[in-house]
């Protein structure tokens, strides 16, 4: 086993200096100030356990920039070796912050008290992959062809997705249902486009998804295509249909590119190609951005203006934009 160390921080700040350090600490670890304050006020405390000396040195350098003292201690499997053990009650808070210190928060894992299925999203934000543990004799709905790996006792059934819209849009009209017969089973789900993945637990709510954003959902979530209305669909240049996910249970959706969650209060404008999902409470209108000159020359074309109160998820890249970028590279047929 390689040698590892624990990182213990200590300081003797007065209140103003402490406030500054908290802000810096929160920024450094990308966490809320509240958590940072909890950790710093409980110093001296171990913020990270069993790390390699290289990593520890990086932490030391960053923390000392903030004026926080750092002691590296040899990790010991026995707690006896710790010279001044941190109070047990404070350790979890510190650990929580330390977990966030991983540079890119790449994994989302469900909590123990999560009401839906246990799941894990790895590889965020660029190459998300979803692993769900389906409890015995329960079912999960998965977008057609998105299943990548699964336990052998999972049984697959293919069903038509609700709503006729899918026939028209050219998207797959099928959804696969995987049932875990006999005991809990694991299924790995990979969306088609590389990008981020989001999860919401619907509690008798409705969420609208852009046509290709659906990944998987719990059995009690009704997934169907919904006609957007002629003006909303046509002018947006996107599909005429949205997916409506309604009911109670888990819902996973994916993006092309990274995902940004926006709390809308009042109104918010999103390019039609970058909408991933939005909550039902929001009203939306497709309109032009700015004046007529902007409509034709801004490169933005039509945008979606959301109003009301709710959430919108957007993606930082767009499939359609990428396709137009590729267009000049398409081969031209040779003339005889």
């Amino acid at each position, binding site marked *: 086993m390689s040698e590892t160390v624990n990182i213990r921080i200590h300081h003797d700040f007065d209140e103003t200096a402490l406030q500054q350090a908290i802000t810096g600490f929160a920024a450094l670890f990308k966490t809320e100030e509240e958590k940072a304050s909890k950790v710093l006020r409980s110093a001296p405390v171990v913020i990270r356990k069993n790390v390699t000396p290289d990593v520890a040195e990086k932490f030391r350098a960053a923390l000392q920039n903030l004026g926080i003292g750092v002691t590296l201690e040899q990790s010991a499997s026995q707690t006896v070796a710790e010279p001044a053990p941190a109070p047990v009650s404070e350790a979890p808070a510190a650990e929580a912050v330390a977990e966030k210190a991983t540079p890119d928060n790449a994994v989302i894992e469900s909590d123990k008290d999560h009401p839906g299925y246990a799941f894990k999203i790895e590889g965020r*934000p660029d190459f998300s992959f979803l692993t769900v543990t389906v409890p015995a004799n329960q079912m999960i709905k998965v977008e057609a062809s998105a299943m990548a790996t699964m336990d052998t006792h999972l049984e697959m059934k293919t069903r038509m997705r609700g709503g006729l819209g899918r026939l028209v849009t050219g998207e797959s009209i099928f959804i696969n249902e995987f049932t875990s017969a006999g005991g809990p089973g694991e299924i790995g789900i990979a969306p088609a486009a590389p990008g981020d993945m989001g999860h919401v637990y619907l509690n008798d709510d409705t969420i609208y998804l852009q046509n290709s954003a659906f990944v998987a959902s719990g059995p009690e979530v009704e997934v169907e295509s919904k006609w957007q209305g002629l003006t909303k669909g046509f002018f947006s240049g996107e599909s005429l249909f949205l997916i409506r996910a309604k009911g109670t249970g888990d819902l996973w959706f994916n993006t092309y590119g990274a995902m*940004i969650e926006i709390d809308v209060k009042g109104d918010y404008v999103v*390019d039609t190609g970058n909408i991933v999902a939005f909550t039902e409470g929001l009203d939306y209108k497709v309109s032009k951005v700015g004046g007529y000159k*902007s409509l034709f020359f801004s490169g933005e074309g039509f945008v979606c203006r959301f109003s009301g109160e709710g959430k919108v998820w957007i993606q930082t890249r767009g499939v359609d934009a990428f396709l*137009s970028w*590729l267009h000049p590279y398409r081969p031209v047929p040779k003339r005889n």
Partner: protein
Amino acid sequence: MDIELLHRPGNAAARITLKEGESCTAEAGAMIAMSGNMGIETTTHKRGKGGLLKAVKRMVAGESLFLNHFSVPSGEGEVIMGTTLSGDMMEYELDNESLIVQGGSFMCCESGVEIDLGWQGFKSLFSGESVFWLNLKGSGKLVVSSFGAIYPVEVDGEYIVDTGHIVAFNETLDFSITKAGSSWLQSFLGGEGMVCKFKGKGTVWCQSHNPSSFGWAMSPGLKQRRA
């Protein structure tokens, strides 16, 4: 103008926060979302400057004529910008200096930065790539994007970069377009074509991937288009 870069380095986006009176000029098509109070104006030139002549100059340079100007009438607003290809972004602050930016890498800049779009110092016609170059000068913040990762190279002396891999460079550098190999035939067969040779002292920011190489790599798998 506050800049926050999100989700670096794979699929970065820039969140620009503007206060009343501030404005931000962005490449056409860069906006992916914005708050409802954000005003957008499309012009063929930097607001209040230039005019028809500059627009024509830019047309000659083979570049989109249009820029979007974002501003908030009152209070505070935000605009989120993204690119088409995946990759990173970089923030840079000009302090009364000049930065040459490859046209496709320009994302947005503050109002204190002047954009000279018809900048012909870099004879793009001869570079063998369909790229254009912008000369950003003045003082203020700006954001550039890259295809793939972005990395700085400190040049002191001479250095060669393939034209397709250049994101931006300090104007303090002298440059010349040249061939990569010792003979023209070798350069051509090696797929390197034309490269840029920098001389002097300054920084060149490079992107790890060349967009047109990527496009041509995909080409055989794409459906034919009508000629």
